[in-house]
């Protein structure tokens, strides 16, 4: 008792404020993460779900996943491809928009504000919206492309394995632009104006100023945006599930959609958990790199 009293006498009392949230997160996040690992080493299907004794099968689930037509590797590759292409496009367009709206014209602030809307729309709705726009016969995208003479026959965007990935990437690209734009815009405002002024006095051209001042000073922001973009895109689920459910023939199957399919469509809970763990481990590594990065660069 005395030890406890002494512990709370000083600044340690702060932990009392944190404790409720901490316990909540341990129960609803910490425990499930551990449970998910346990599940992936057991054999839990719809038949064994309610029994108390669950068979321990070691690495069998993981081994099976690599054997089963190797959809796991397909999803892993798809997820990487989806993520990298998305963030590349988002970043470039977001950067360009941030620079553009950083100029001091009348509509800059209000229009930039309105451009944030796509980021706030529930992903289910965005998925639905693009499913509609990419649909073969009613889709406006086919109509535009035909009007411009780019295509002569409607493309089956979402039902053709070669184009489906492109369509989901496009939809996610639309969501990600505002996120990239606003973070880079905030980064731009931290660059001291004097630097640009003195560069102008020294006779530096626009491109030179951009390359010698903007890019190096914006490097920390750009790195954060790219890593965060990677993390958020790598775990995208709803959007793709609504648009294609991972199909056709797994051409848009991501780790997240594959895990869901195994657990809740095929009721192979343990295999679903195993796929989720693969996703988790990769994200955990990337997040750790990111955290290390902001902590060495930032204050603490």
């Amino acid at each position, binding site marked *: 008792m005395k030890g406890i009293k002494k512990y709370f006498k000083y600044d340690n009392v702060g932990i009392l404020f944190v404790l409720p949230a901490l316990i*909540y997160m341990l129960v*609803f996040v910490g425990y499930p993460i551990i449970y998910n690992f346990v599940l992936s080493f057991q054999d839990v299907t719809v038949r064994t779900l309610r029994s108390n004794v669950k068979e321990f099968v070691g690495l069998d689930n993981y081994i099976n996943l690599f054997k089963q037509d190797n959809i796991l590797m397909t999803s892993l590759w798809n997820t990487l491809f989806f993520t990298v292409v998305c963030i590349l496009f988002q970043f470039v367009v977001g950067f360009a928009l941030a620079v553009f709206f950083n100029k001091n014209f009348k509509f800059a602030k209000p229009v930039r504000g309105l451009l944030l809307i796509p980021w706030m729309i529930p992903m289910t709705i965005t998925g639905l919206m693009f499913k509609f726009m990419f649909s073969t016969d009613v889709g406006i995208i086919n109509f535009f492309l035909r009007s411009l003479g780019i295509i002569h026959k409607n493309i089956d965007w979402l039902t053709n394995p070669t184009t489906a990935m492109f369509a989901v990437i496009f939809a996610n690209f639309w969501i990600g632009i505002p996120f990239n734009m606003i973070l880079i815009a905030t980064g*731009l405002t931290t660059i001291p104006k004097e630097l640009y002024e003195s560069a102008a006095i020294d006779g530096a051209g626009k491109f030179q100023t951009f390359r010698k001042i903007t890019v190096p000073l914006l490097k920390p922001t750009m790195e954060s945006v790219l890593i*965060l973009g990677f993390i958020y895109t790598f775990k995208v689920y*709803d959007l793709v599930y609504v648009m294609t459910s991972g199909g056709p023939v797994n051409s848009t199957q991501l780790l997240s959609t594959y895990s869901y399919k195994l657990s809740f469509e095929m009721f192979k809970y343990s295999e679903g958990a195993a796929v989720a763990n693969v996703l988790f481990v990769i994200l955990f590594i990337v997040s750790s790199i990111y955290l290390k990065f902001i902590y060495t660069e930032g204050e603490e």
Partner: protein
Amino acid sequence: MDSDLKLSKTKNTVYCVISIVLLCVLLFPLYWIFVTSLKTEKEIFQIPPTFWPEVLNTKSYLAQVKSGDFNMFRSFGNSMVISVGAMLISIVLAVPASYGIAKYHFKGKRAVILGFLVTQMLPVSVLLTPLFITFQKMNLYNTWWSTILSDATIGIPFSVLILKNFFATIPKEIEEAAYIDGCNKFTGFIKVLIPIAKPGVVVCGIFSFLYGWGDLAYGMTFILDQEKRPITAGIFNFIGQYGTKWSYLTAFAVVTIIPVALIFILMQKYIISGMTSGAVKG
């Protein structure tokens, strides 16, 4: 870049025009579903498509009130209950936690912060299966609670990390003045510090609400009955059952976007601060 340099009048006009064009292109998808929701099913299939409905059709909105397995307005209400519930849990837990982290030094503080940062980056997939089994055991499966409780796991870490920065900027003198006036650590926190951090609390409320509102995975997995499901899961279900009846689907989409649009119109400045302050700095 040249942000403070005055632009010439022509340049200003040119940039304004470009920005409006950009806006129209980027927000076109939203306009398009709105227009579609007001068309008849026949007009939707018309080629070339009409960019404003020839016959204004509001039936897609009204039809769902009376009949159908999917009552959009009930689902809307379900989503409200779930998102507000998740928001309340997030705020009630995150406000004191962020204060504790910002103002005190206790053992293990760094680990706690890192824990919140990591959970923010967690994929839902990892929690879905274990929580599904746990909620079944706890008899929470197929209730609103299952989804409220899991949606709050997204709002809490986000809110803690944002509010921590808010509390950190409140000068120590204000706190000390409160103690001199007879407050202890708890009453001082409630009476003095929370009111000052109010803008931060609003940001957290908005984002926690939006996370709940946008959720599909939890609502779809943990709630089985169509009458209890949030609107996102209801819409998804509708696609599965009736296929692509676009006049209805776009109407559902518009209704789902309404609260988001309202939040955006009323609280834009909070949204920008939430998107930037929470994301970049830990």
